[in-house]
């Protein structure tokens, strides 16, 4: 997988989280993964179509999800309900959209499907024939992952 895919998602994530929740994620070591799965509490899947095809998975722990929604709304959150999961889906959607704008600078024209939100463990229904890359991101309010599976 090309580095511009990873870099575009990293930059978009950094910019969006800085603006929305005042945090600056730091990138951890990339991991190659064989399956599209997560044991984190809140997962958002974005399908990608166009010049690049595949999917992106954002995986957040519960406390971090609640803290992000609290920072945005100024209100205490004690569970990932429809309000929190919808906000989280929209954050991922905005990051995805911005990442695709960055990828268009490399002449890739793509589109994303509406976010699919999964609360609880996530395992993709369709198996991956190829490997995906998982990028851990460390922030002062928790650690989350973005798993990227894209091909031309």
């Amino acid at each position: 997988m090309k580095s511009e895919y990873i870099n575009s998602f990293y930059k978009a994530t950094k910019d969006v989280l800085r603006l929305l929740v005042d945090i600056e994620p730091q990138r951890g070591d990339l991991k190659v993964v064989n399956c599209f799965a997560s044991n984190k509490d809140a997962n958002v899947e974005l399908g990608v179509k166009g010049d690049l095809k595949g999917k992106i998975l954002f995986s957040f722990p519960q406390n971090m999800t609640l803290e992000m929604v609290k920072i945005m709304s100024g209100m205490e959150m004690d569970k990932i309900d429809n309000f929190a999961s919808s906000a989280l889906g929209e954050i991922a959607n905005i990051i995805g959209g911005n990442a695709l704008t960055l990828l268009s600078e490399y002449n890739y024209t793509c589109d994303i499907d509406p976010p699919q939100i999964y609360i609880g463990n996530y395992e993709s229904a369709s198996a991956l024939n190829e490997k995906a890359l998982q990028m851990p991101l460390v922030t002062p309010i928790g650690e989350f992952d973005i798993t990227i599976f894209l091909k031309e």
Partner: protein
Amino acid sequence: MMWKEKYKIGIDSIDRQHEELFGHVSNFTQTIRNEENWEAKLDKVKETMAFMKDYVITHFSEEEAYQEKINYPYLEEHREAHDKFKEAVNDYVKIFEENGFTEDKIQEFGGKLMTWLIMHVGNMDQKIGEYVKSKGGQS
């Protein structure tokens, strides 16, 4: 409160409207999230929804008129973003009219509305302020 000083764009008339808009969205969020029985607060939810729908349209129109006045070069792009925002709000209004103001759907709408608004004002609208600044100050 949702409003933060960093969302200001440096143009008083627009900042005042943004702060007011954030205030309304914040009140809406508090209303839909308080512990009160859903049926009991339904009238307030409907009333706030109707008000916000109108307020968003008024604010967007005024913001676009301001951009025209200052010959803002990204007006079309900005108008498109406003149109998408309005379309998304109207899609939800349609869902509520057809299927009722269910708590789950309103909560879903509330989470999205908050995120859209912060992102739009905190990102796209900032560029209007930067443009005005580059031209030598407030217009």
